């Protein structure tokens, strides 16, 4: 990372505020790495397509506590298994963990100091991204989830991060998920908000041998928001980590998912982004086949309209000795306007010889054959287009296991693709 100055005092401003108590060593290390650094510019290879000038121009400050009516965000399957954070602070009255099974720890970080030693220890061997360090230096609170050995949690857990910004603020949600060997969990992580703000969540996941985590990540930030998220998952032998990131909001979003697979492990990083106007959504993923016989799947879909822009950079690394690796990556993109843009790039680094790695990238418009099929059944051209666009997205949504989440997202996608009036919810 170069230190190109973008005329921003963002880092200086944010770091000059008070440092929250606890996790001092984590914070000091992050501050140390941030010393002298500034926001990346388009001259940095990893940020070539994503200009942060607009972000740098806004004077974000540390977020004050706020109260928000959460009734619209409650999910019926998870009324008793939710932790809610508003502006990065835990909201105890909005949270309810009454249905969390015995043995499972599902707490705000601020009350779980025993998780202290585990935080910040999922390491990917490279210098943390600047926004991850910013989170480590300044996060106020977040959630810790610990599931003991062999416990299969029947109810999904709900993590709700809400931001309410009357003036520009910065929030740093933090999550640590540890599943002991053989444990199983379904987690829904949602980000919603109002106003202009910067959200830099960091999620660390550590899965023991044979543990399984299904992780739905919903990004519905406000249209003025910036969302720069980091996800780091270490998957133990024969463990499974399956995540799906669904990006709808934010004027600018960037996801950094990183997954390390041990022997025989399985990893899924699926994504869907629905973009319009001037939105930018960037995903830089890293799938690390560190040991033999691991399987990975990636299906990343973007629907881009208006002057919006989607970026996908999918790195897959097969370490020396990781024989028997099976890695699949697909990037599929639908452009709905002349001014929409997609940049997609697979990046495979394979240091083992007995592996199966496939990747594909497609950028295009709706298929005229498909449109003709629907028109031949009496749908006019607009209806046919909207229905196919909806179908392109619904392909990802129909795999979301929690019914209420699936339904809400389908309705959102229907509204965004003008397919709602067609009444064709599958």
């Amino acid at each position: 990372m170069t230190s190109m100055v973008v005329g921003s005092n963002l880092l200086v401003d944010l770091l000059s505020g008070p440092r929250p108590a606890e996790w001092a060593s984590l914070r000091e290390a992050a501050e140390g790495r941030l010393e002298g650094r500034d926001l990346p510019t388009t001259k940095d290879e990893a940020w070539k397509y994503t200009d942060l000038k607009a972000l740098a121009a806004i004077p974000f400050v540390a977020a004050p506590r706020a109260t928000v009516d959460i009734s619209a965000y409650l999910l019926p399957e998870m009324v008793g298994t939710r932790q809610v954070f508003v502006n990065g602070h835990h909201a105890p009255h909005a949270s309810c963990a009454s249905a969390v099974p015995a043995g499972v720890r599902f707490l705000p970080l601020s009350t779980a100091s025993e998780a202290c030693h585990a935080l910040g220890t999922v390491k990917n061997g490279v210098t943390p991204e600047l926004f991850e360090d910013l989170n480590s230096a300044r996060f106020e609170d977040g959630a810790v989830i610990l599931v003991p050995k062999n416990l299969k949690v029947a109810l999904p857990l709900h993590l709700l991060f809400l931001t309410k910004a009357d003036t520009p603020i910065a929030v740093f949600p933090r999550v640590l998920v540890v599943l002991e060997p053989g444990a199983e969990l379904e987690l829904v992580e949602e980000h919603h908000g109002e106003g202009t703000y910067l959200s830099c969540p960091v999620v660390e996941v550590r899965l023991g041998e044979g543990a399984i985590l299904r992780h739905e990540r919903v990004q519905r930030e406000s249209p003025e928001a910036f969302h720069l998220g980091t996800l780091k998952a270490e998957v133990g032998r024969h463990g499974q980590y399956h995540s799906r990131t669904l990006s709808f909001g934010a004027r600018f979003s960037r996801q950094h998912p990183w997954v390390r697979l041990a022997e025989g492990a399985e990893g899924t990083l699926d994504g869907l982004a629905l973009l319009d106007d001037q939105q930018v959504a960037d995903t830089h993923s890293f799938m690390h086949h560190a040991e033999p016989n691991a399987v990975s799947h990636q299906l990343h879909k973007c629907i881009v309209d208006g002057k919006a822009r989607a970026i996908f950079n999918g790195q897959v690394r097969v370490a020396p000795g990781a024989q028997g690796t099976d890695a699949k990556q697909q990037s599929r993109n639908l452009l709905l306007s002349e001014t929409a843009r997609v940049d997609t790039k697979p990046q495979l680094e394979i240091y083992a010889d007995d592996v199966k790695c496939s990747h594909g990238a497609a950028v295009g418009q709706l298929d005229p054959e498909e449109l003709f099929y629907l028109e031949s059944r009496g749908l006019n051209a607009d209806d046919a287009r909207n229905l196919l666009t909806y179908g392109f997205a619904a392909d990802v949504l129909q795999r979301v296991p929690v019914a209420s989440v699936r339904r809400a997202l389908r309705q959102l996608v229907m509204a965004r693709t003008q397919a709602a009036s067609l009444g064709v919810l599958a």
Partner: protein
Amino acid sequence: MLSIKNLTASINGTPVLKGIDLDIKAGEIHAIMGPNGSGKSTLGKVLAGHPAYEVTGGEVLFEGRDLFSLAADERARAGLFMGFQHPIEVPGVSNSSFLRLAYNKKAEAEGRDELDPLEFDDFIHEKIKLVAMREEFLDRSLNEGFSGGEKKRNEILQMAVLEPKLAILDELDSGLDIDALRVLGDAVNRLQRADRALLIITHFPRILETIQPHHVHVLSGGRILKSAGKELALELEERGYDWVLEASAAGGAR
């Protein structure tokens, strides 16, 4: 019902139909047969309004209206239906919802009442019996993961739902086993009425044992080389297409 006069069409500047004349009256079943690449599927697509084909000459009247003044969806709502050789898959859109949508679009165009989901549920359960489709296929996404035969079954179900005046069935038999072919052939026969017409496009005569045509036409090189009654299908089964092509080249097949 359908009157085709000296129809010519091309794709990417290459002529594919080179002067087709064909009259189809209500109550009739016609079969268009021909070797691969003869232009027979093109004829179906041109009539249904496929955007890749350019009509370069001639005239087609459908119920007295200029067919080419109508967009593909308008043709469908006016009562033209094409059963696709390769139906497409639309994930995320349930089959039954799609069928209801198509039904209601046509009902709306005809000034009939639209059906709400409950009414349509009763309606569609009668229709699936006709094509012996299992109920689970209604809840699945449109054609997604359907086998070739299941897709064809779904095409005929769509036909049964839309009750077209003229149905063009393109290679209905491809991908079907013999039992499924009989079931769908019977269904098509039961849908046929005195005020409806059928145009069967097929390479193999087998399907015409179930759906018996009044007229059989051999299409090759973008022209109809020979027209006769259903006995022509049997002759083609025995002798293949070459003799028609050769006789035509010698100027004697008509």
